[in-house]
């Protein structure tokens, strides 16, 4: 028995919750690492500015963590509420990483609480800094475990089906599925990259608003370096993901690339619009798709012609692919120019228009995260468990899902507005100049 409208609204509500959650979750995974790096740099260089960076980021981080925690709790329960049949099956096969994720989350929550409420309490900054390691590790590990669950949905294995019954379940085989390495790596590095560019955007914005403080210059350079490293890593791992798709989920790659006919020497399609089966106004890079898929310019790439109509994902995912890739490349360029320009003394990186580009980099990176997730998730339609369970079979049969969608949409709107208002007020009321002054008067000039 399938309740069509419940399926539709369940998909809508899941998409809404996840799209909202990943903004805060990405920041939640990446920012602890940034705080740790800042604290460490401050400790090594004996420079109070970096210590203050860690403190100010941590303060803002609390707000995003709060929203991340509550929306994470929401999606955690919604999985069972909206997809009970799927969760019943997943419970038997993929419960282990789900379970481990809560431990990672627990670990992070405990040490974040300690870190936040022990400023200046320990004699050495080093002791305080050590508290950040479990926070950053816990944050990243929870991303690792939850991404493993998602990877399983794309490449389910670790069990046999005999007469419709699941037997011979191997939890570790299910965890270390073929989709796992590229997914986990891509999620982690893009979270670090996005967090670096979001924080850099704030620094850039303060400078545009007239703050001449050296604090912002230091933070911008540090973040641009981190962003450069992780955006390059994201591109490299993205390339591996392409190879994974060609091997295991060729219809996702073919749909994302509008690759209709199976052929060798396949070219990569960038941009363009689809008119029936004809691609218009696109940039085609010869051989690039064959290289992306198989590391070989002559290799044959499976096209959409090889699949049944009902097994194909929607073709609009190509636009999502374009958005993700072009923003990723753009951010590599922006950070590369900044870091090289800083070393070579190029003046344009200090100009107002370049600052505006840096400011735009924050929201753009978040858009790329959203587009990437939509591409990955819509790209595995019509399956909830690839090749095994179609999405409608996993959904709830209960009514009122549409009402719940309205309810949650209202809550997320309140959370979004609340968190933005609080964050803006927090930093407007207490700019860096004032915090440094306060700190000097508190400590009588002796900072570290």
């Amino acid at each position, binding site marked *: 028995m399938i309740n069509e409208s419940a399926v539709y609204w369940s998909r809508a509500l899941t998409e809404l919750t996840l799209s909202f959650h990943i903004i805060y979750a990405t920041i939640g995974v990446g920012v602890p690492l940034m705080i740790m790096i800042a604290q460490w740099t401050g400790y090594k260089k004996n420079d109070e500015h970096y210590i203050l960076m860690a403190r100010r980021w941590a303060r803002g981080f609390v*707000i995003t963590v709060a929203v991340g925690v509550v929306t994470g709790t929401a999606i955690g329960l919604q999985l069972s509420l909206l997809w009970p049949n799927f969760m019943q099956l*997943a419970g038997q096969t993929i419960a282990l990483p789900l379970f481990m994720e809560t431990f990672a989350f627990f670990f992070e929550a405990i040490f974040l609480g300690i870190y936040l*409420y022990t400023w200046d309490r320990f004699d050495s900054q080093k002791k305080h800094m050590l508290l950040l390691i479990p926070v950053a590790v816990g944050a990243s590990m929870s991303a690792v475990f939850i991404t493993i669950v998602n990877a399983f949905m794309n490449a389910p294995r670790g069990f046999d089906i005999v007469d419709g019954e699941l037997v011979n379940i191997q939890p570790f085989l299910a965890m270390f599925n073929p989709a796992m390495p590229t997914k986990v790596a891509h999620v982690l590095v893009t979270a670090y990259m996005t967090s670096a560019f979001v924080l850099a955007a704030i620094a850039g914005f303060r400078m545009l608003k007239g703050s001449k403080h050296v604090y912002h210059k230091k933070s911008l350079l540090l973040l641009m370096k981190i962003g450069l490293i992780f955006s390059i890593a994201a591109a490299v791992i993205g390339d591996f993901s392409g190879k994974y798709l060609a091997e295991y989920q060729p219809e996702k790659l073919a749909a994302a690339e509008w690759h209709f006919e199976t052929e060798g020497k396949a070219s990569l399609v960038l941009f363009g619009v689809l008119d029936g089966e004809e691609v218009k106004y696109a940039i085609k890079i010869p051989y690039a798709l064959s290289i992306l898929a198989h590391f070989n310019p002559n290799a044959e790439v499976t096209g959409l012609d090889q699949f049944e109509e009902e097994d194909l994902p929607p073709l609009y995912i190509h636009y999502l692919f374009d958005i993700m890739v072009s923003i990723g490349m753009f951010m590599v360029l922006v950070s590369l120019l900044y870091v090289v320009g800083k070393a070579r003394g190029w003046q344009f990186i200090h100009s107002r228009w370049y600052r505006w580009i840096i400011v735009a980099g924050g929201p753009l990176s978040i858009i790329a995260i959203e587009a990437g997730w939509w591409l990955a998730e819509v790209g595995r339609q019509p399956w909830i468990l690839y090749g095994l369970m179609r999405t409608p079979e996993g959904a709830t049969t209960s009514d009122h899902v549409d009402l*719940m969608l309205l309810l949650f949409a209202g809550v997320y709107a309140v959370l979004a507005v609340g968190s933005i208002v609080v964050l803006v007020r927090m930093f407007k009321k207490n700019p860096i100049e004032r915090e440094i002054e306060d700190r000097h008067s508190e400590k009588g000039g002796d900072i570290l």
Partner: protein
Amino acid sequence: MTLEILGISVLWIFLFGYVIVASIDFGAGFFNAYSLLIGKNHILTNIIKRYLSPVWEVTNVFLVFFFVGIVGFFPQTAFYYGTILLVPVSISLVLLAIRGSYYAFESYGTRGHIGYTLTYGVAGLLIPASLSVVFAIAGGGYVDLIDGQPVLNYWTLYTSPFAWSIVVLSIAAVLYISAVFLTWYAHKANDSEATKLMRKYALVWAAPLMISALGIMYEMKSINPESYSHMVNLWWMFAISAVLFIVTVVLIAMRKKYGLAVGLLIAQFAVAFFAYGIAQYPYLLYPYLTIYDSFTSTQMAIALVIAFILGLCLLLPSLYLLMKLFLFNKKYVTGKEDNHA
């Protein structure tokens, strides 16, 4: 001990952990809001903030742990409870979302905003009320199977005296647990005003707690005779719980040994909670689902138990560190040190 019993025991312990820490948390939020309304917030706010600040997100993890764990150990619960609880649990989630985020907004953003504080306090009482409905549903009588799909009968549920008694009990328990704990905490902080006030609340909420608990026993007789007879067989556990309750109330009334009172209170609830749980055995959802027909595969169960033990090795020392630094740190509790970021 079979793996099924081990699994459900572990989950029940974590659920109990959530009941205690969440009760302290929810009750504290309510007392804070109430004190603002009657103009006594200068007495309570500091002591409550001081306790809540470092632990607010840890509380939430206990809940997450429980619902992830139950799907892991008993995957069929996802099918039954997932399908029937869409509306009640979504409402709890909305309340949790408001409450969880507003705490951070309030303490880091705009301190002392009345709207925040009141919302926070009221949501804190509605959450246990909305979550405790699940206990009533688990007892049976509110779920029909239609075409093999479980459907919740809202009308029977919302007109059921049994369900409402559970709601009343959960609210009374939240306020009582929280008041006893905060009496002790305020006493430790040498804050005699707050101790006095919280002590009064603890005594006020003791009576409704007992009355609603007895009411539930009475109604169970007709609703679910099977677990009622189990409960009668376990009378000695409920008797122990009652004795612990009386001793706690006497200690509080005589202004003696608040620390011991908190210990006895936890023991009282632990005994009652486990007796209630044992009386439900072997059902997870009466009469459709038992812990045996819904258990996960042996391989997964063993993997989960190993993960659980390793997780505890990480968790217990960390929790100990958290308590040592805040709850049992004289300087922090008495307010000589704040040091928040």
